[in-house]
């Protein structure tokens, strides 16, 4: 004890001395210039050209509308976003004015003090009233709005039409039917997984928890509490983990799978069904099952219902450090406007966040119908807490599923442990 006190004293002296680890100053610039250069960071897609064209036309009209402004757009690889955006918070001189960011990162960036509160601007924006509520929730932390939704991504059930025809199966209408159908496919075609699932595929598992009335966590604003161990949530966990077994998707192979692994298995013709996103379309089209599959919303517990899905996607936000707040907010609105989102859908297939625009594109492109239906039914979002980054990166939920399917723990024990870890994270992240 004595030693630690002395060490503590030494360290305290060192900290107060000039050699303390550095921090950046207050990051608000306080300025609101009406001309100059605005910097924008957008994510670089593998096939980026069509996105660049859409963005360029937005930039052109923006520069025309605001004399003396110039916009430079930089496309950053998604894999580097964490370091880049943190670095931008740390060095306002290098920071952009407007960024695209993943919607599960919202709460973390707000806590880091990086995003500008645009509540007033968003609510007074004429187009905002058509924003779908879940998308709005994904830019909201503690009742304040920190950006404009850019596009959404949602998952539904992909199934093999040829396998279903051959075995005389009907498209499942409820969760019980889904599980039964999966087992029948596997029984008839032992080389196929019935419904391919993954122990590390959190977003594929969430609908099962939500459909059974469970939640990941409950609460509002800063204080969340884990709800993953409630009886309803456990029912959902049981349903999902029952799919891992030799009668559907053997644990030895499926316990470690990620969402992408399950899509790969489906695309290569190894599975009768899979839970995939609208963004998985291209990968499936490039695979062996092209022309032999269809998509429907993932069924819920009640026959005919749709399981609530996770609404992923990206947002556009303004950085706190911007010296052009008014201009940056205007650029944000233009980048996330109804017109731009419609064009982005045509160029990249990104689903619009406005319900009316989404309805229009579903008319044009029948493929997106099941996804739009899913979005219209019910979607949910991860807890809007900075702790989510910690829960996500320390693999709390995949560990829970894997403990159950590998037989290391029972559902109640694994869910209890996961809830404990989540509460620790909520507690320490405040």
């Amino acid at each position, binding site marked *: 004890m004595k030693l630690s006190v002395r060490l503590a004293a030494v360290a305290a002296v060192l900290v107060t001395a000039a050699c303390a*680890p550095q921090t950046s100053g207050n990051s608000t610039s306080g300025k609101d210039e009406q001309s100059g250069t605005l910097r924008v960071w957008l994510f670089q897609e593998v096939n980026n050209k069509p996105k660049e064209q859409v963005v360029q036309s937005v930039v052109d009209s923006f520069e025309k509308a605001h004399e003396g402004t110039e916009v430079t757009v930089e496309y*950053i*690889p998604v894999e580097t976003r964490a*370091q880049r955006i943190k670095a931008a918070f*740390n060095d306002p001189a*290098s920071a952009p004015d407007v960024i695209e960011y993943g919607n599960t990162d919202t709460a973390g960036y707000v806590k880091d003090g990086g995003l500008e509160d645009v509540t007033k601007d968003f609510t007074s924006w004429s187009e905002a009233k058509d924003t779908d509520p879940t998308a709005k929730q994904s830019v909201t932390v503690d009742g304040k709005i920190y950006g404009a939704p850019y596009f959404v991504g949602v998952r539904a059930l992909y199934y093999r039409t040829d396998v279903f025809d051959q075995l005389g199966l009907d498209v499942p209408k409820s969760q019980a039917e889904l599980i039964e159908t999966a087992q029948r496919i596997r029984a008839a075609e032992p080389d196929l997984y019935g419904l391919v699932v993954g122990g590390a595929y959190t977003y594929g598992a969430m609908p099962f928890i939500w459909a059974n009335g469970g939640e990941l966590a409950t609460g509002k604003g800063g204080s969340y509490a884990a709800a993953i161990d409630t009886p309803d949530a456990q029912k959902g966990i049981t349903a999902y983990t029952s799919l891992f077994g030799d009668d559907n998707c053997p644990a030895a192979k499926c316990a470690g799978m990620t969402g992408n692994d399950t899509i790969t298995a489906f695309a290569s013709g190894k599975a009768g069904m899979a839970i995939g996103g609208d963004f998985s379309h291209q990968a499936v089209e490039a695979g062996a099952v092209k022309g032999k599959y269809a998509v429907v919303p993932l069924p819920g517990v009640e026959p005919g219902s749709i399981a609530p899905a996770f609404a992923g996607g990206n947002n556009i936000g303004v950085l706190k450090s911007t010296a052009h707040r008014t201009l940056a907010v205007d650029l944000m609105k233009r980048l996330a406007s109804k017109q731009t989102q419609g064009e982005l859908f045509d160029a990249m297939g990104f689903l619009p966040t406005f319900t009316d625009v989404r309805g229009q594109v579903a008319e044009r492109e029948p493929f997106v119908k099941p996804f739009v239906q899913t979005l219209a039914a019910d979607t949910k979002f991860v807890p809007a807490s900075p702790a989510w980054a910690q829960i996500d990166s320390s693999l709390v939920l995949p560990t829970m599923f894997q403990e159950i399917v590998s037989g290391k723990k029972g559902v109640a024990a694994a869910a209890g442990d996961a809830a404990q870890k989540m509460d620790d994270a909520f507690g320490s992240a405040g």
Partner: protein
Amino acid sequence: MNLFRGIVRRPWRTAAEAAALLIAAVVAFPLYWMVLSAFKPAGEIESTTPRPWTPAPTLDSFRRVFGQQEFGRYFVNSLVVACTVVVVSALIAFLAATAVTRFRFRFRTTLLIMFLVAQMVPVEALTIPLFFLMRDFGQLNTLGSLILPHIAFSLPFAIWMLRGFVKAVPEALEEAAYIDGASRARFLWQILFPLVFPGLVATSVFSFISAWNDFLFAKSFIISDASQSTLPMALLVFYKPEEPDWGGVMAASTVMTIPVLVFFVLVQRRLVSGLGGAVKD
């Protein structure tokens, strides 16, 4: 030139050569698979019937790699960073290795161990202090922010490595040189330097590869100026969570690996030509 020429009997040499070729094939197989995957059309990389060839080779993946914004610029930047690191760290390390080998002084061992210390902690932990250091030097968003840390991280190994080579040069050679009237500088650069060259080759391969393949510094310190970015960033584009493009990954990696092999073929002649024999002169 064979070191053991005349000593190794023929059947043994044949067996050794067969083993070398077999091992080379096994070691190269994953590389072959990488290149092969780069040429496979989308959807064939993960097919339930893996084939060691592809019926329909395509350049699509390479097109996606080269079609990226400023790809050529990235390439040049990577080359500048790696070459600067190799040359500067080799020179600094050569001097330092001479110092710790040819002189005895207090704290010599402590110093040697201290050189290694920074490599023992996770690099992520060091990027925060390094970030602020680079910011204060005004090096953020410049190639300098990559070159400086890489020199620092490749030095400890280079110094330790060259130590062994400097040590192998007999003291008598140094004395003889001074008796012949050579200055200290002349001995250092014209006699000692060529003698430790095989060691320099090995260390330069090491520092070249670690600078060439670095992701972490590049994504932490090159924040807002894409024109200062390096090749690994062009590879990371294809690692999109949820929808990775394996063809693009393999093609980009193939493109990244080739310059290293070229660099190696350029320097390996010096490694193999056996400067070791020169010591006896």
